[in-house]
């Protein structure tokens, strides 16, 4: 039935979003690349001009640069690890027959609805505050010294907060996948004497693989640009201990007004995101074709 007419209609329907996204991608990116070759400082415009690659070498020689790339990867990697493994375990638990499963689901999904600045503020002040936080109360109850989370373990603290925000997403998608598993298959495996572990490895895990890839892909997109959580809690510190690449770019642009260097950092961030995306997309593309 796909006549020439319906096909051109289809193209016509698709065009607006393709054009919009193309413009949205190309124009800001082109401008960023342009600025990355400029010396541009709104506060001190005297030396503004074309400077070739010196912004890149300045950004690269910044001691925070390698640290920020490392922090970005550590943050993405650890949160993925925690949420995927934790999500699988939680999904297996919630999938068991129990009383009040509906309420359990609602409680578990809740952090997903909390906006990043609120999540960060609540964790910073209510939970991890070295004096008034709940963790400090618990530590004092056991007679221990409360931990100064953001001073001593800034990356760990941020990883905990971000993982808390994304665990619900992973759990619920994996739970949905788990619940779509054919009950008869499970029973057959049980009849054949497969124990819990081998059932999990040979039946459940392959069944969930598509869901796991989607979780990894969607989360990677959002985790690469974590920003509000760092801004609110540690402000990238102490030193550069919890500065990721987006946050370093933000510091250059909005705190130091070094637009050229910030743009060079932005271009590097885009390249890094594309490298990560390339691998994620390839894995997902393969898995979604099945």
């Amino acid at each position: 039935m796909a006549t020439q007419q319906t096909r051109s209609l289809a193209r016509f329907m698709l065009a607006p979003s393709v054009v919009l996204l193309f413009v949205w991608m190309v124009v800001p990116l082109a401008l960023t690349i342009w600025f990355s070759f400029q010396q541009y400082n709104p506060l001190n415009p005297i030396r503004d001009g074309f400077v070739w690659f010196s912004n890149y070498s300045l950004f690269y020689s910044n001691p925070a640069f390698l640290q920020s790339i490392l922090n970005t990867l550590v943050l993405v990697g650890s949160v993925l690890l925690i949420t995927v493994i934790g999500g699988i375990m939680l999904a297996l638990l919630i999938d068991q027959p129990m009383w009040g499963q509906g309420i359990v689901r609602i409680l578990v999904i809740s952090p997903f609805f909390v906006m990043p600045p609120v999540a960060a503020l609540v964790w910073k002040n209510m939970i991890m505050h070295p004096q008034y936080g709940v963790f400090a109360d618990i530590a004092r109850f056991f007679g221990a010294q409360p931990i100064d989370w953001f001073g001593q373990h800034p990356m760990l603290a941020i990883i905990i907060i971000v993982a808390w925000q994304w665990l619900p997403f992973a759990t619920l998608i994996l739970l949905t996948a788990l619940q779509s598993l054919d009950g008869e298959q499970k029973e057959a495996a049980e009849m054949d004497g497969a124990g819990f572990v081998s059932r999990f490895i040979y039946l459940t895990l392959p069944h969930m693989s598509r869901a796991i890839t989607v979780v990894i892909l969607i989360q990677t997109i959002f985790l690469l640009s974590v920003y509000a959580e760092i801004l609110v809690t540690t402000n990238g510190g102490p030193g550069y201990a919890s500065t990721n690449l987006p946050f370093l770019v933000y510091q250059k642009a909005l705190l130091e007004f070094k637009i050229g260097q910030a743009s060079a950092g932005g271009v590097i961030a885009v390249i890094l995101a594309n490298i990560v995306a390339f691998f994620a997309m390839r894995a997902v593309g393969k898995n979604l074709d099945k």
Partner: protein
Amino acid sequence: MARAVTTQHKVIATAAAWIVALLIFFPILYTIITSFKSEQEAIQGFNLIPSGTFESYTEVQAQSGYFKFFLNSVILAVGSTILALIVAVPAAWSMAFSPGKWTKDILMWMLSTKMMPAVAVLFPIYLIFRDLGLLDSRIGLMIMLMLINLPIVIWMLYTYFREIPGEILEAARMDGATLWGEIVYVLTPMAVPGIASTMLLNIILAWNEAFWTIRLTTTEAAPLTAFISSFSSPQGLFWAKLSAASTLAIAPILIMGWFSQKQLVRGLTFGAVK
């Protein structure tokens, strides 16, 4: 036949699941509890029973004016969602029902535009917005939110539309349905649940977007993300006030999410679960 479940197994599973669920929910619960404490109570150590005062709420309202931010959040979330649907529904529709050689690649490319870190393009966007007079305007921010969520919206709609079987259309045609009848009586009822859950997810994403909404606004168009950011620097005794403000910022979307979580979760799987 369901598996026989021993009561003991069920009791253990229930207890374990409830403990974990309450731990995950605890930061939110404790914030809500603290919002009903006075500032003095809030710092007197762990305590789950508040005195039930509303003074933090009245103070927050007097200090920052909640309702203007709330209204902006609603307008931005709903407005950007409607814009996104207007653009995305035809696109997802055409890719689902007359897929071409490039459909998969186009979808992947669209998703890849989301990989661009927002902060990398902040400055150019800021300049463009300034030159177009869109800084701190609701319409500018609406377009922004529409653009950043568009790939996800298209992707989600696509996975929904693809599940609508093409044979149903042919059957309707055989029965003599006109194109209009096809759209109104056959396709729309099947597409509505998918569109509805996409809408919900997009409203949540737009409501919680905390980069552009803070960076591109000052007062007029500032939504709740900006409202809560004014509490980021400690200001004396502010634990109860912070809790009240946080509760106010998340309550609308939390309640909406609770009521719609079933539809939402199905949409979130992006076609990964058949």
